[in-house]
């Protein structure tokens, strides 16, 4: 019997959107399955244009509700708030388990568009330093690809999504196709000058962001609102809704199914191929099955692993495409810490107007070139500066008209540097299925085992010391610093579990993101990664997805799948 679809894409987030776009544009009839509800571009952004006084809790949200039902998601104060809470999962209704001795905060967005609606939008290419890192220091399995394999796809993706940034000529952070860079604030300019004068191996640059500074297609430029996580009707940042979904829909070959969880991928042992997926409706609990010639896993790192682990059969008793035994293992997330915060002096006559939705960064400088450290790999800083706002009125002395007068203007300048340290691949950090607990759909609950190792802790200790040194050299007064890692998962850069590799005995995927054991099964979300670098990974996911889809369609057309 002919399959219902040419391809099924599981998930609709950053990579799911890309898979749908690429496959439909190349002529395939595609079913995209999303576990959450639909959210349409523009009309679905219900709180986008609201002021605090339009909200029941003036933008702060119901703290008791958050403690009861959003106890993980509400930790992300930069992104989660009263305006955006509907873009994050209800933790009470979507439980997961942590293995004994583990702590992992799993941040999730279950809706059409997934986390593409709420992501941080930072876009960085990985370099050959990153793609060869596992081989260089022997920690982890060598990548089966190098920068040259991905570079054309970085080009391709950047031109479509739009990335603002500056070309710097850095080996650790290859330049791309950039829209005009955003300007720095006064404090950032001062610290940049000092760092580059006093630390020749370092640079402070503006973030490379998928907030566009010029019109891209029918998407308007960024309005500097910093309301991104509410959804942006201007289409000024890349999301499934603003970018890939309209492109896929325009082909007329896309079917979108929402409110539907994929339980497992079906497999035919006679052909050695995946045949489709089985699903459960989140509202009606209806069970369905869909068939296709190609299945692309884009459910997000942890859910992709869970679905494959649930896809057991006589041929694959430990999870689909898991002959290697590596499935679920080598889970990573950048070890993050607020390395230092400093008060910046002498610029109280400077200000800004508007909310720039972008960071500044200090690209990795450790274990690069002649620098050699006792720990492997490195870290990058991301940070920003601002003047304290009216909130300081509750943090210091003062009452009455004098206080009100004082709060008419901005407070002191500060600049913070937060570190993302590379997370080493560790087989004991893994996604599993709980032996007895079930989720609301009756599916085995995800269990996560995760701890940072000494390498990450050493990198963060160095990051604290270096952040302090750079701020102090710039004349700033350091008011706090830390090397304490945030809880695993806090970077929301979870990746790994179905790593790529040349050796089928040690890896799940080949160099084109095809499962070694099931060639018409692709995994192109974060699950495919076998090292973490220290850059935000989403741009690399997108490039690998476009590359993998291109290869898969060629193979389909050649009859190889």
């Amino acid at each position, binding site marked *: 019997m002919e399959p219902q679809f040419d391809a099924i894409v599981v998930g609709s987030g950053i990579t799911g959107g890309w898979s749908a776009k690429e496959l439909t544009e190349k002529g395939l009839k595609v079913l995209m399955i999303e576990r959450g509800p639909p959210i349409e571009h523009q009309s679905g952004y219900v709180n986008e*244009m609201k*002021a*605090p*006084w339009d909200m029941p*809790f*003036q*933008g*702060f949200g*119901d*703290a008791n*509700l*958050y*403690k009861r039902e959003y106890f993980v998601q509400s930790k992300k*104060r*930069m992104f989660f*708030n009263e305006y955006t809470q509907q873009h994050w999962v209800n933790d009470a209704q979507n439980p997961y388990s942590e293995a004994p001795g583990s702590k992992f905060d799993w941040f999730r967005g279950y809706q059409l568009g997934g986390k593409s609606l709420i992501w941080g939008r930072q876009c960085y290419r990985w370099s050959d330093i990153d793609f060869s890192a596992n081989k260089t220091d022997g920690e982890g399995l060598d990548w089966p690809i190098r920068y040259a394999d991905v570079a054309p796809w970085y080009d391709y993706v950047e031109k479509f999504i739009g990335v603002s940034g500056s070309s710097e000529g850095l080996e650790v952070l290859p330049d791309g196709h950039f829209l005009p860079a*955003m*300007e*720095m*604030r006064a404090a950032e*300019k001062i610290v940049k000058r000092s760092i580059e004068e006093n630390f020749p191996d370092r640079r402070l640059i503006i973030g490379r962001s998928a907030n566009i500074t010029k019109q891209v297609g029918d998407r308007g430029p960024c*309005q*500097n*609102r*910093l*309301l991104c996580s509410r959804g942006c009707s201007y289409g000024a940042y890349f999301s499934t809704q603003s970018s890939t979904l309209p492109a896929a829909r325009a082909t007329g070959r896309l079917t979108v199914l929402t409110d539907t969880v994929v339980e497992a991928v079906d497999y035919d042992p006679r052909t050695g191929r995946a045949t489709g997926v089985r699903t459960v409706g989140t509202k009606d609990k209806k069970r369905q099955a869909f068939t296709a010639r190609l299945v692309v896993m884009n459910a997000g790192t942890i859910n992709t692993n869970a679905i494959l682990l649930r896809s057991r059969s006589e041929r694959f008793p430990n999870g689909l495409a898991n002959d290697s035994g590596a499935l679920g293992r080598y889970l990573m997330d950048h070890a993050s*810490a607020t390395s230092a915060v400093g008060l910046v002096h002498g610029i*109280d*006559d*400077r*200000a*800004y*107007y*508007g*909310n*720039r939705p972008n960071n500044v960064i200090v690209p990795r400088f450790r274990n690069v070139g002649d620098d050699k450290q006792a720990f492997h790999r490195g870290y990058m800083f991301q940070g*920003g500066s*601002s*003047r304290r*706002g*009216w*909130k300081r*009125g*509750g*943090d*210091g*002395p*003062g*009452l*009455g*008209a004098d*206080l*009100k007068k004082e*709060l*008419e*203007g*901005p407070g002191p300048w500060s600049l913070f540097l*937060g570190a993302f340290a590379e997370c080493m691949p560790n087989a004991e950090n893994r996604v599993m299925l709980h032996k007895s607990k079930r989720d609301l759909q009756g599916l085995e609950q995800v269990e996560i085992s995760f701890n940072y190792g000494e390498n990450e802790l050493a990198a963060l200790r160095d990051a604290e010391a270096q952040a302090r040194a750079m701020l102090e050299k710039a004349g700033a007064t350091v008011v706090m610093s830390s090397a304490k890692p*945030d809880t695993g998962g*806090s970077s929301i850069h979870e990746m790994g579990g179905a790593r790529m590799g040349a050796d089928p005995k040690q890896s799940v995927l080949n160099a084109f993101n095809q499962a070694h054991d099931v060639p018409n099964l692709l995994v192109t979300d974060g699950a495919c990664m076998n090292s973490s670098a220290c850059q935000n990974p989403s741009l690399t996911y997108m490039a690998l997805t476009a590359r993998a889809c291109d290869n898969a369609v060629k193979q389909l057309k050649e009859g190889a799948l």
Partner: protein
Amino acid sequence: MAGGVPNPDAAAPGMERRALLRGGVLALFATSAGALIWKSANTVPELAPELATPQFVEKLCDMVIPATDTPGAVGAGVADFLPNALRHGLFGGDGLTLGRLAAVLDSKVKPRRFLAMAPSEQVKILEALDAATYAHPGPPDPNAPLDQKLWRTVKSGIVQSYYTTEIGGAKELTFDLVPGSKYRADVGVDEVPYLSNYWVENII
């Protein structure tokens, strides 16, 4: 990486009351909040708070952010918003925070009531508490006395509530949801108005 909201008022009221009942002989008297103050035999004051009166909340709002050439916290509706916000756990408080603060302030002027004091005396009392609360810059001290913890919670709540009302956010300050072409990354401080909707600076 974002800092959490301090929770100076974390003690569970039910637990506190049970501890109190173990304390022995108790004395009882009324407060301006309509709350009850219990005093144990060892003279350590303990509170069994009830709801604060609207008059008390309005008085605090007016003392923290008064009407000037723009309406103050009372005119902005903060006295109506704040009790509900605290009941829902905002600003690190709870439904008893205002009542407990009323009882604390009454205890400072006993046998009189805080609300019955002359305005100048009220200012003096609150200024002293304010100065003590913020004597040391930096994050809140988890071991600070109860009156200082309560005051920090309530004052912070009044400030945050005020500048997120339309009066505080858009009349006292400037609110611009869509800076667009007016956006400036680096500009003289006198060249642009100060916005109330700097999200990272104020909301996070």
